[in-house]
């Protein structure tokens, strides 16, 4: 008899549901994504500045959602979920970061650029 003979609704992972946290996550994420959309559509900064600001907004939204709706915290019920996530993050960053870095170098050394490529990289979409 290893099974707990108790109501499954008393399990801590059921009890951690929190309506106010979910609502906060929804409002903050929607605000951040709306600001991102506004930045992308209005072109008020340079393309690089817009890309960096959208990346920052996305990062904040992911952290907000990770805490409020995925419950990534150090409570007894969730600590191993959080540990698994923390151990996973370097894999995620390294996979994307190293690939982008390697191919950025490879393209410069190996690819024949289209005639307009060198100028197109720095051109904003509105200018043509």
């Amino acid at each position, binding site marked *: 008899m290893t099974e707990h003979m108790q109501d499954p*609704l008393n399990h*801590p992972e059921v009890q951690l549901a929190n*309506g106010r946290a979910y609502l906060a996550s929804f409002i903050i994420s929607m605000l951040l*994504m709306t600001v991102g959309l506004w930045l992308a559509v209005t072109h008020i900064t340079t393309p690089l500045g817009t890309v960096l600001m959208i990346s920052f*907004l996305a990062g904040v939204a*992911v952290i907000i959602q990770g805490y409020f709706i*995925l419950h990534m915290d*150090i409570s007894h019920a969730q600590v191993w979920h959080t540990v698994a996530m923390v151990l996973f993050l370097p894999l995620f960053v390294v996979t*994307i970061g190293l690939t982008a870095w390697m191919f950025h170098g490879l393209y410069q050394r190996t690819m024949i650029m289209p005639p307009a490529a060198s100028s197109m990289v720095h051109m904003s979409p509105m200018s043509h």
Partner: protein
Amino acid sequence: MSASAAQKVDPAHATLWARHYAGHDMIGTRTFGFWLYMLTDAMVYAALFATLGVLSHVVNLAGGPSSSAFINPVYAYGQTITLFLSVLIYGYSMVALKNGNRGGVIGGMFVAMLLGVVYLVISGIDIGNMFAHGIFPQVSGFLSIFFTIIIYHALHIIVGVVWMLVMMIQVAREGFSANVVYRLINLRLFWHFQAVIWVFVFAFVYLQGIVA
């Protein structure tokens, strides 16, 4: 039990092993296993986003359109609203589960499922518009990864919608048995994870696609 849910782990006194067998926690074991599975799914997304980073380079346009030429952010923003709302309503369904309210769980899940369907309809209209303008995955390397990412995400939403339909039937038939409860928690992990992934898709595929 609910006291231990709020109790924090003190890193200074945490031990890596249990001195006494605490009994088998069936629900906790299965949700943790499913969480590890979701992280492997996130690795697939990591590979897809790495590919997007590589194929976004101008040499991969192959004469086809760049993303700023065809992306209409209105559809993607509509998808953002419906998916985040669906995740919120599913959260309320889990609050109803906490209170043992069977009708609340089924009703919340039904609304969350409908919003998932609305998401898929918007996604279908968006992709249909692109196809109507001759923007197909086979046109260029960039369009291949663009459609792969948005269709891979839409497939997850289809799985979530079907899963919710199944869980509504199970809750109605079995009530809150241990098996049903761990499946509801797994579905929460799955569905809420799709919102996190969508932040990446919306920001890095759609918004940065307009800017690039």
